[in-house]
């Protein structure tokens, strides 16, 4: 019977195998995306489903997170007499970490799972095989536009999340706690640096977009052609996607020195 060490070995090999397949899939998608015919209409449709339809959850969550930051930030800073720096605290937290990470997690849950389920059910109903028999590559027609839309939508949604967060911080810090409106914006402007903060934030959101795009499309594509397979694809997208976003966040933060 297998002992724990062998099981661990077997599991590790399977993980590496999965990663390998995902990487091959990602490269195939990238190649198909730039080869004509460029599927612009498809891309726009997916951008709508992934980006526009996520706007509500992104903006509401951004606002809520910003308001909490404003409240908590104010209470903490007041102890050091530094409440005029609230703008900087809220802004830097959002731009550097909370914006990219939280926006990515929200998108994974809403759009990532939807993409995985959609592709998974196409596998289950033999639609992808149907395409193959017509000599049409399903990776290029179905998967690539969705991954490209995810990659494009993520930085845009992240920016909107941050703006809503800043507004939320203003509402609670200045509106509720009667902080000084001028110093909120001034400390924000003075302490946020384009090179150090914004570029790092942008790199993160683009990287997360690519990661989630690949994970969601691959889990759908490689799912078992049953209803159970579709559901497994959805849950594994959320789990794997979330964990890898958080890990990637650490890697980028460490490398970029943000």
């Amino acid at each position, binding site marked *: 019977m297998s002992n724990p060490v062998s099981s661990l070995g077997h599991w590790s090999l399977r993980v590496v195998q999965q990663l390998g397949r995902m990487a091959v899939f990602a490269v195939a998608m990238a190649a198909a995306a730039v080869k004509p015919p460029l599927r612009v*209409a498809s891309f726009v449709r997916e951008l*709508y489903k992934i980006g526009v339809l996520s*706007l509500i959850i992104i903006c509401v969550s951004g606002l809520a997170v910003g308001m909490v930051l404003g409240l908590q930030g104010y209470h903490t800073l007041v102890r050091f007499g530094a409440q005029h720096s609230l703008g900087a605290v809220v802004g830097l937290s959002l731009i550097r970490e909370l914006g990219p990470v939280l926006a990515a997690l929200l998108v994974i849950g809403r759009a990532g799972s939807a993409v995985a389920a959609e592709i998974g059910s196409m596998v289950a109903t033999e639609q992808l095989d149907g395409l193959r028999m017509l000599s049409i590559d399903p990776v290029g027609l179905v998967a690539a536009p969705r991954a490209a839309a995810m990659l494009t939508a993520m930085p*845009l949604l992240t920016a909107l999340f941050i703006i809503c967060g800043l507004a939320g911080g203003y509402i609670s810090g200045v509106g509720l706690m009667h902080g000084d409106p001028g110093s909120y914006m001034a400390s924000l402007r003075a302490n946020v640096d384009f090179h150090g903060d*914004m570029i790092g934030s942008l790199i993160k959101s683009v990287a997360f977009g690519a990661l989630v795009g690949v994970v969601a499309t691959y889990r759908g594509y490689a799912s078992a052609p049953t209803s159970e397979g579709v559901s497994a694809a959805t849950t594994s997208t959320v789990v794997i996607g979330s964990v890898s976003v958080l890990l990637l966040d650490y890697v980028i933060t460490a490398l970029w020195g943000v």
Partner: protein
Amino acid sequence: MDRSPLRDFIVGLFVLAGLAALAYLSISIGGFSWHGRGGLELSAGFDETGGLTLHAPVVISGVRVGEVSGISLDSNFRARVDMDLDPTLKLPTDTSASIVTAGVLGDRYIELQPGGDETIIKSGDRIAFTESAVILERLIGKLVYGITNGEATETKPKPQVTPK
């Protein structure tokens, strides 16, 4: 084909909104600016930079003319600050550079005071006249020292702001 003009429009708006958000964050808040290509490279030595950071602005009469492109230590343990400035500037060789603060507790930046010399400074030159940053704690220390040891009769203890 299943195109919907309305949907295309909405997606277009979404993309514009996102880009606008990025632009606002970058420019208005992040301070990104398309400065014209630098090109005039000068250096200056200081005893104390006081927390001057990379990409800090270099200013003449309140107008930004470039940025700090490098901060390092020279062989005498003095700070060497490299600057990347607008190449159309014509600065005299007796220009001075000082590290000043934006407000009392704000960020450091470099202010250049053009001198009156005839010769114009060239790229790669070193600014000879410099004024180091003022460190607030040392100033307070000197003041206290001056009060307790000098002519001051009233010994008003400086209020100590103890963080935490």
